[in-house]
Every structure is written in structure tokens, then in C-alpha cells.
């Protein structure tokens, strides 16, 4: 992340686009630079979605391999970070679908309004992470993408392949469960 701190956002996008162009031409060193820059965020997402370090490693690795294969399809005006996250979510969901039966679904009926993720009292980070890891899959997925990584409902729903209303309902559920488990108000 050193490079990201040392240069501005616009410069970083230019710099990354240059790396993408080089990687498209088969330059694995350029792709390694992209890997080094983004592996932490990709692994962090995979770890929170899978709750298993070894599984998260596999998913992160698969994410970069799939990204390499799909570099031609990446639109350089987009954020490579978001693009990699989309791929990572796809990898995690694909593996999950193969090993578990269909997960629970929520109707769109109880769609709540937008809400924040501020806790009324400071809570130990480890305690928050444990509470998040203990959430049901669907609720955890949307909370991680929306609550931690800051994606909009629309973006989160698109990544997970669910309706936006379902996404909001899952967030509502996640918020309620988190509040009960952490014993704090979330506003």
C-alpha cells in the first residue's frame, strides 16, 4: 500500500491503468504489482465472506487468476479494486454453491430505509469481527460489502446477484443481529 499512499488517487488510477495495459500484453511483473497493491483488500474480503483463512487464500488466489484471464474485458475507466472485489465475490459464491445447499432468502417486503453503521459505544474490534463472522451467510455477505467496504445497495446487490430490496432486507437483519450480539445501538 506504500505506493497508494505516496501518490494521489488520479495518479494511482493512471499508474494502475498502465500496469493493466502491460499485464494485458502478458507482462506478469506488471500483474504482480497489481497483485501486491490489491491482495490485502481481496484477501480481507474473502476472509470475511468465508470465515476460513485457508479457504480465503484459495479464493484470493483464484480471484487473481480469473482476473488475469479476464484482463481483456476490464474497462480501464473502472476501478480495478471494485472489479477485483466483484471477481472475488463471484469466486466465493461459486465455491459456496458447490459445497452447500441453497442459502436462505429474504423477501423484499420489509425493505428498510438507508441507515448508518455507527455504534453508540466503542467496541473491541475483535468482538465486532467475531459478531460479524457469526452472522448468517446472506446477512454477513451484504454487511461486509456494504457496511465495511462501503458499496452501495445497488453495487452490493449486483455483486451478490440478488435484488436490491433483498439486499436491504438482509442488511436490516444483519444490523438487528449485530445490535443484539454486541449489545449496542447501531445508528
Amino acid at each position, binding site marked *: *500500500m506504500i505506493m*497508494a499512499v505516496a501518490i494521489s488517487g488520479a495518479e494511482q488510477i493512471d499508474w494502475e491503468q498502465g500496469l493493466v495495459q502491460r499485464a494485458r500484453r*502478458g507482462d*506478469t511483473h506488471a*500483474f*504482480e504489482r497489481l*497483485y*501486491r497493491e490489491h*491482495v*490485502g*483488500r481481496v*484477501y*480481507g*474480503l474473502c*476472509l470475511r465472506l468465508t470465515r476460513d*483463512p485457508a479457504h*480465503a*487464500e484459495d479464493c*484470493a*488466489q*483464484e480471484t*487473481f*487468476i*480469473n*482476473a*488475469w*484471464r*479476464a484482463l481483456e*474485458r476490464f474497462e480501464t475507466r473502472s476501478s480495478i*479494486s*471494485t472489479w477485483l472485489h466483484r*471477481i472475488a465475490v*463471484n469466486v466465493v459464491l*461459486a465455491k459456496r454453491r458447490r459445497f452447500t445447499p441453497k442459502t436462505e432468502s429474504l423477501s423484499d417486503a420489509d425493505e428498510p430505509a438507508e441507515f*448508518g*453503521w*455507527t*455504534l453508540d*459505544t*466503542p*467496541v*473491541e*474490534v*475483535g468482538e*465486532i*469481527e467475531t459478531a460479524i463472522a457469526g452472522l448468517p451467510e446472506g446477512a454477513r455477505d451484504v*454487511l461486509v460489502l456494504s*457496511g*465495511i*467496504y*462501503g*458499496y452501495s445497495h445497488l453495487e452490493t446487490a449486483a455483486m451478490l446477484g440478488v435484488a436490491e430490496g433483498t439486499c436491504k432486507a438482509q442488511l436490516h437483519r444483519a444490523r438487528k443481529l449485530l445490535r443484539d450480539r454486541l449489545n449496542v445501538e447501531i445508528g
Partner: protein
Amino acid sequence: MGSNDSNQQHGTATSLRELARSVTPPRDLWPDIEARLAQERAAVGGARRFGSLRPSRGQWAAVAAAVASLAIGVWLGRSTLPTAVPVSAGNTATATVAQGEPAALQAAYVSDPRYLQQRATMIRSLEAQLKALPQQTQAQVGASLATIRKSMQDIQSALGRDPGNALLQELLVNTYQDEMRVLTAVHEASDAGEEI
């Protein structure tokens, strides 16, 4: 998206947005990724030499037929072996040989670390590659690999009792070659069939 990209693991937080988005993996994943990319580049190079990247129906059938014939070949090979003694708790030496990698082998091909590394990499990527194949071929590949691996275990068990048996050593090397042919066939067939 905010800017909280630190590896914060301790302390307290008053918002989920304060949680670390970036988590460093316990090990560097790049060497494995690089090995897979090298495989892909080699496979693409090979495929380009032979034409289309996407396997045709005929190629699927060829892969399936090759896999099926390998399984039969391996099964016939197994039938010529001395009767394998089932691995039991009381047969520690045999069990060690049967469960481990080819520790008892004299054959340079199988014990070559480059070969073992390549094999491990291909086995790790097998699951993802199988997804690109039709269901029927997936089933055939799974059955063939199971047969091949059972053969490896049987041969290794037999070698545990008779480590100097040249015929067994040759059979084991052949079986590893059969496995590598199946892994390579799957890899080549699935290449360019992968969707994100």
C-alpha cells in the same frame, strides 16, 4: 468507498467503516499464482499452435475417450500386480508408504521436485478447471483419477513390501504419467472456457 485500508486488528471501533479493509494473507500467494499463470501461458501457446482456444464438441469427446481409455489401462495394470495387502494399523511401514508421496521410489521422474511441484499445482487448480467441462466428462475424469490414485496406493503398498521391484517401480511411474496426462488433458480442455 473510504480510505481505511490499514491492517488494524486491535483496539476499539465506533463504526464498521473503521474495520480494516485490507488483511495481509498469512503467506505470499504470488508464487502459486505465478505458477498457474505460467501454465496458462504455456497452454495458450500450445492451443494457438493447434487452432481454436475453445474446445469443440469433438475435442470434449476426445478428452472423455482418452480419460476412459486411461482408466481401463490403469485398471488392467492393477490387475497384473501382486495382491495388495490392505493397509492396517498393524502394518505401519506399509501404511506410511501407501499414504505418503513416493518416498520409497528410486525413479527419478517421480521424485523430481519440479515434477512434484507441477503436479501439486495442477491438482490444486483441477477443481476450477473441471467446472469448465460438461457434467459427463467431469464424472469420467473424477472416476479415472480415483482409479489412478487407487492404483498408486496399491503399487506403493506393494513397493513397501518389495522396494527393489523394478516392475513395480515402472508401473508406479507409468501411473503417475497417466495421472499427469489426465490433469493436462483437463487443463487444456478447460482453458478459455472459464467465465467470471
